[in-house]
């Protein structure tokens, strides 16, 4: 990819990121969204994160088949416990990386 490819990609990503951040601020200043939309949107973060995680944790991504008990899944358990205990985003990332690194050295 050359400069203009990257500019187009990141410009496009920037635009679709900016629009949802900007539209309510610009138009809905004091108005409230309909309650059903608020309720539906509030489910979106959890749903997206689980959708992103599911293939990583439960499938073999080279053959796209079910694979239970992967190191990614086993490391996720202590990583989640650390996040629960500390509520720290940066710390959880570091601990998850460290545990995954250790698992690759000692377990598989």
């Amino acid at each position, binding site marked *: 990819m050359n400069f203009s490819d990257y500019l187009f990609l*990141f410009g496009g990503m920037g635009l679709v990121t900016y629009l949802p951040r900007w539209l309510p601020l610009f138009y809905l200043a004091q108005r409230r969204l309909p309650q059903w939309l608020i309720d539906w949107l509030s489910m979106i973060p*959890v749903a997206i994160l689980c959708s992103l995680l599911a293939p990583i944790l439960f499938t073999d991504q080279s053959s796209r088949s079910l694979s239970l008990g992967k190191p990614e899944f086993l490391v996720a358990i202590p990583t989640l416990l650390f996040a629960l205990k500390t509520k720290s985003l940066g710390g959880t990332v570091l601990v998850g990386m460290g545990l995954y690194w250790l698992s690759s050295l000692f377990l598989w």
Partner: protein
Amino acid sequence: MATHKTERGFSKKRHRPETLNFSEQHPSMTEQTDPADDASWFRDGALASWPICFGYIPIGLALGVLANQAEIPVWAVAMMSVLVFAGSAQFICVAMLTAGASIWAIIFTTFVVNLRHFLMSSAVAVHLSGLRRILLNLFAYGITDESFAVNMARFRRGGWDFKRAITVNQLANLAWVLSTTSGAVIGQFIPRGAFGTDYALTAMFLALLLFQLHNMIYVLTGIAALVIATAWYIFIPGNSYIIGASISAATIGFFLKRYQDSRK
């Protein structure tokens, strides 16, 4: 974490409570002066934003390293962080570029992943009403999960204004651009997968997910998304599982909440 739950339970509390408590003890935070006349807006904003900036450093470095391993040049990483400024979407972009996804697929996925900011922007709008539209346009750029959480907590406590809030946004933005770019530079000296960098994205998603599970409805929505996404991923080629499973599971969660409310 109960201290910064928003009224409607969609709070994004990715920052650590202990670090927020630190700034809460600062004397300037408890004074109820008129924010507009107060000259210490930059210091207040900086004090409120440091937990975000600190949290961004390892994630930004990890993103830069991954981008480097995906053979994205350093200047392009800096350009991405300035133009997009959305951590998880940038990780997904790097992953999708590595997997050979098309530019349109990446842009569409970014749109869906970042739609959640629509809700945050709506909530923060209440506190910025009456502001000039040019300032609103500038503020929208910096609305992230983290800056939203910090600014909403401050607005509700009082003594917070546009200048302080946009200082939080833009210092976080600066930390993000610097750490991702540094990661891309350092990444040239780190072999692929070293120190578990392959797991950085997964660990970040796990933490963000955990912080979202406010009650049983969210847990059930998450389980639905895991099951649907796994099946969708196995049976349907391409990346449509992200959007398909997210919309399906959110709709299931929505009706579960309706059902729960109707029984009250």
